[in-house]
């Protein structure tokens, strides 16, 4: 039983960075911008959080630095695509390549250095409960923040006026502009939020999941987050499901490998990707709904003067 609990806790660890990055990207895409630089923002967030935590000794400042690093990358992307009207796909790919390179450069002197794992929140009375205690109440603050970001995002997009404006801009930026909504400004803010969230995902990796810095330690998680957004048909609830499914199978296949089944490890490594895609495709089989959820202006450049 305790083994199971321990396994489930690692599932949470594998899912949390994905969830951060994917929620951020979801809001960005809902505003009509396609930022393929998630991986780059994430990895820079990871090195930023690690380096600042190590030098200042404060994990809180480190986490903030991770978010700021991601947001700074997003700002560069926003300048390129929103102000200078550069192509979003090319700029996003460049951002990823740049982020991986820059993080390796910054992190060179930090390779192999240890940092304390983020402390678990200690909830008196609750964390001590058997099994349920560590499973539900034994995590660090970032895990709870990532999960809370889901209802918060749902509320923002569905219930708040600012969210309504953001969705309208992603749906039809010309019409939103004609109605007088600030297309460029909203997209800047959405991108900064997406960058900060990707940075938090990176910070979780280097401070909690594996408390250390290694070059390219995001290992494609930014790309998974991007795929999750699409397969979740831009719905935050499904994002939560997808991220945890992916995390769960990632951990499960590691254990299967550990037991030494006669399945090539490469196939097992593929499993999380295949299963997540299959599950999300199955739940979004209703193509009509999926098309209505997809932001119609996604990836299109906005020229203010028609």
């Amino acid at each position, binding site marked *: 039983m305790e083994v199971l609990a321990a396994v489930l806790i690692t599932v949470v660890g594998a899912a949390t960075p994905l969830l951060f990055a994917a929620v951020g990207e979801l809001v960005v895409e809902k505003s009509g911008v396609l930022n393929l630089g998630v991986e780059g923002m994430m990895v820079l967030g990871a090195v930023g959080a690690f380096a600042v935590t190590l030098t200042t000794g404060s994990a809180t400042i480190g986490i903030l630095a991770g978010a700021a690093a991601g947001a700074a990358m997003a700002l560069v992307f926003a300048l390129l695509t929103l102000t200078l009207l550069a192509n979003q796909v090319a700029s996003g790919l460049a951002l990823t390549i740049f982020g991986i390179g820059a993080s390796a450069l910054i992190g060179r002197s930090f390779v192999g250095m240890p940092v304390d794992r983020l402390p678990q929140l200690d909830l008196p009375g609750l964390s001590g409960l058997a099994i349920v205690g560590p499973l539900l109440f034994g995590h660090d603050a970032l895990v709870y923040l990532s999960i809370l970001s889901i209802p918060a995002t749902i509320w923002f997009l569905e219930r708040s006026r600012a969210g*309504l404006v953001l969705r309208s801009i992603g*749906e039809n930026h*010309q019409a939103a502009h*004609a109605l007088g909504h600030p297309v460029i400004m909203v997209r800047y803010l959405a991108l900064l939020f997406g960058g900060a969230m990707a940075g938090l995902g990176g910070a979780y990796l280097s401070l909690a999941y594996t408390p250390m810095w290694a070059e390219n330690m995001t290992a494609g998680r930014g790309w998974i987050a991007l795929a999750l957004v699409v397969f979740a048909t831009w719905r935050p609830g499904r994002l939560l499901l997808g991220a945890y499914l992916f995390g769960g199978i990632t951990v499960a296949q590691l254990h299967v490998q550990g037991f030494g089944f006669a399945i090539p490890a490469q196939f097992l490594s593929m499993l999380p990707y295949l299963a997540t895609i299959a599950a999300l495709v199955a739940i979004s089989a209703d193509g009509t709904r999926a098309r209505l959820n997809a932001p119609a202006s996604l990836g299109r450049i906005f020229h203010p003067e028609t």
Partner: protein
Amino acid sequence: MAEQDGMAEQDRPARLQLSGISKQFPGCLANDQVDLALAPGEIHALLGENGAGKSTLVKIIYGVLRADSGEIHWDGQPVSIASPSQARRMGIAMVFQHFSLFESMTVAENIALGLDHGPDLDRLAAQVGEVGRRYGLTLEPERVVHDLSVGERQRVEIVRCLMQNPRLLIMDEPTSVLTPGEAESLFKTLRQLADEGCTILYISHKLQEIRTLCDRATVMRAGRIVATCDPRHETAHDLARLMIGEDFSRASKTAGGTRGAARLQVRGLSMAAAAMHGTPITHIEFEVAAGEILAIAGVAGNGQNTLLAALSGEQLCASAGDIRIEGQDAGDLGPRRRRRLGLAFVPEERLGHGAVPEMSLADNALLTGYERQDLLSRGSIMFSRTRDYAQRIVQSFQVVSGGVGSHAGSLSGGNLQKFIIGRELLQKPKVLVVAHPTWGVDAGAAAAIHTALLDLAGQGTAILIVSQDLDELLQISDRIAVLSDGRLSECMLTAEADIGRIGLLMGGHGRSEGDVNDAGGERRAAQT
């Protein structure tokens, strides 16, 4: 009485006064020293051909564009309108020609987006209901716009404007997508608004509706105001002459040509709709002979899109014999192979379907003309021939553009339509299928397109026109049929066709013969 009102109005300041407004775009002076005064409570028409500068002017009024020079007075006070939200705060509202709605959102959300500080959605729904009752514009706030008809969508736009209690309502070609019945109820709403003191600036080039609806008309040509008149006292022909600046004659079919062999035959064609909310077509049968123009009338959304997709080859038929071009089975052929047989096709949607907006006119000309115009040489494009071909289209059809290198998307709607029609006509097709040939095109250009179509028929091409514009169809077709709910009525000789019966067929009441004859008789009696 009327004169006294006129005196009183002159003493009051105009609601909106524009003086000396100019706006320069690269390559054209869109507005040149425009003066315009709108009185409170009047319905004022702004008339002009495509590209005359009407849209630019209203964009300046609504704060979307800034004028290069000139002054704007609002209720006698000088103002500068920097943004649409400022215009809305002043009491200016606008209904756009291409709807500014968000398809995946509900009616209530769409309306909330047009208000600067919208109340929460529940209270908004109640207010929408109230405005709807006052002006006869019923809406269901919970429905998603995607599922609404065109008329309902426009209602959403109008209610969105009315929620702001506007004092100036701008309507940019509002009836171009409406059925006659929908247009009539729109006019009622507009008159009620004007009676309550709201000024309405009504942009259109439909002369007949301006004559019935508007109190005054300002005519623009090439960026300038050329006349202001009372449209109720002018004939449609006079208004058109003011607009175009020269006399023109309406093309019309000379009756009694000889019909040649059938060039396009459709036999028992049934097809499911391709689009999400399309209408399937059932057992369509007709023939178009050489030199003949067959018109298919009907209100949009009755299967026109499915029929057009089946004819163009975008959707293949169940059996090859359903469609025959020049006597050959073509039902299973794709668009390119049908073009080889001599078919040319003008789709309904100009941007994205009829032309690629981001590509130059020359490239767009190449896209359908490369085979019949010999624009390729062993697989590579012959650019000079392609440009010549595009140049010929531009010249023959007086397309106003910045040259054949300019993007298709930069042309005004009417000019692009002329270009697309010209591109197909110059290929001298054996069969031409054309949807809404003069949609959004001004009277002068429409006459030119009609003449070109008639000339083409005179050279032996079989032409099929699908349109909502009954006047146009009656004017140029030899035979006419009505598409309603995916079924085609029998074909009637246009010269002998009974308008009342066509109207009933379009309204979907033509199924049982007895009813039709009765109702048609009443209609005739009522008309005389």
